[in-house]
């Protein structure tokens, strides 16, 4: 039973990270119908920013909590700036182009950002400082949950609640939903659609940055390629739940994370991806729009 709970909790940790990234994919898709393939790179850039900032601050002898707070803040700001800029440079000029063009542009941006970090940093794995404070749980919990698992889980839950409140109750959130449902009408009621799209990219990037810092600190090393792999997994989670749907991104991440964790624990870690993607294929066969996605029906 302990083993089950342990797997369950480590699955939740994975799910949390996937969810933080998947939200960016799903929100951007919801608002401009684009799969932002460069999103994984934004997450990677968040982790690198955190590495650089935390190292510099440590050299100057800042206290631990100041380092953590400033590092997270810097990663969020830096990633958001990248996300916002990528949208302005690579997607906005293609707003009225055929759907394939921005997609190619997104893949190009992804490759560009990977290589930029590769050249600016290194291709080796770099050690990442433990930014999540270590504390020991008492037995009988100590061997099933670690402090970083708990911090990741709590952070993700907090972020999700805040995001849900933002989207449901604030004027900006309502405008985001209105824009994703009917762009022309959004303009006609006076919503600045470009601004709303920009805000969506900023929020998605900020969430990815938080995910990047958390996972880098949890695993302890990063390189330029982490964004690609995490990005593909989070994208899978978003599609699984129904791309464009925010609750879908939560649910898809949860299912994907738990499946991987149990497959690793009970079968073999070699089969982790096999189970995850088989699940995706199965769900797409029976529910092509994803679990909570809507197959669009036009009412005349």
């Amino acid at each position: 039973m302990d083993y089950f709970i342990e797997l369950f909790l480590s699955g939740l940790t994975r799910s949390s990270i996937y969810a933080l990234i998947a939200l960016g994919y799903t929100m951007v898709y919801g608002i401009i119908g684009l799969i932002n393939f460069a999103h994984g790179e934004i997450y990677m850039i968040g982790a690198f920013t955190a590495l650089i900032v935390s190292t510099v601050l440590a050299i100057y002898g800042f206290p631990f909590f100041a380092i953590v707070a400033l590092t997270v803040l810097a990663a969020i700001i830096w990633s958001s700036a990248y996300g916002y800029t990528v949208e302005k440079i690579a997607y906005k000029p293609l707003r009225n182009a055929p759907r394939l063009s921005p997609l190619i542009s997104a893949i190009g941006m992804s490759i560009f950002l990977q290589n930029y970090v590769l050249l600016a940093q290194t291709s080796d794995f770099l050690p990442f400082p433990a930014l999540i404070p270590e504390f020991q749980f008492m037995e009988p919990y100590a061997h099933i949950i670690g402090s970083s698992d708990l911090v990741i889980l709590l952070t993700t839950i907090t972020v999700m609640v805040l995001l849900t409140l933002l989207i449901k109750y604030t004027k900006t959130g309502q405008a985001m939903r209105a824009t994703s449902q009917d762009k022309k009408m959004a303009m006609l009621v006076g919503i600045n659609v470009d601004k709303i799209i920009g805000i969506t990219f900023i929020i998605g990037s900020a969430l990815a940055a938080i995910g990047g810092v958390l996972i880098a600190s949890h695993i302890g090393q990063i390189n330029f390629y982490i964004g690609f792999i995490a990005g593909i997994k989070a994208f899978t989670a978003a599609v699984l739940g129904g791309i464009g749907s925010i609750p879908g991104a939560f649910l898809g991440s949860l299912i994907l994370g738990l499946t991987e964790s149990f497959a690793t624990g009970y079968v073999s870690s070699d089969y982790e991806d096999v189970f995850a993607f088989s699940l995706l294929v199965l769900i797409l066969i029976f529910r092509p729009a994803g679990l909570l996605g809507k197959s669009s029906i036009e009412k005349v």
Partner: protein
Amino acid sequence: MLLELLAVNTFYGNIQVLYDLNLTVKRGEIITLIGSNGAGKSTSLMSISGIVPARSGKILFDGKEIQNMAPEKIVSLGISQVPEGRHIFPDLTIQENLNMGAFLRKDKQAIQKDMEYMYSLFPILKERADLPGGNLSGGEQQMLAICRALMARPKLLLLDEPSMGLAPIIVKKIFEIVKKINKDHNTTIFLVEQNANLALKIAHRGYVLENGRIALQGSAKNLLVDENVRKAYMGV
């Protein structure tokens, strides 16, 4: 003069839709633009709202040139549009739809008051305030669309085919409300309609659009008895 279009030419890509359109709307009047399918009626409204900007010519609102302004700027000056097909935000609740109409306003209390007023015009909307807009019937959606536009407290209300696809009794009700809004709030109304008979009955003046050009204009009374208008648009 509240709105003036001076030699407006509008294109979709390479295809010209409006040719040297000249049109004026006086403060407080109901004016109607009638014409057949594809004449350019909706495009005229989209050019005024800045969604499909005019390629040449001038659009003056309250004496200000607005032809190069962004759509949200035009809304903030006091022009609201109810587009053809209503365009309710389907997954936003009715209340949220109304809220979006007041997107550029900051006066929370007055917004609340206006919302109550809309609910008094159409009590059915109040009953369903928390339901998604997409659940409403066509007629209810049209009412909601008009209310949403009014939430911006526009000086000029652009109405595109409010009668489309609706039962005659609902159309009658909607036109009564349009008249009431014009009278009670002195809101100027620019009504685009295929149903020429209906439109000319509530309007003060009318324009007839043919292939992107103004073919005829005059007081609604005269147009209503005009031989050509009756033949072409009323099937008499």
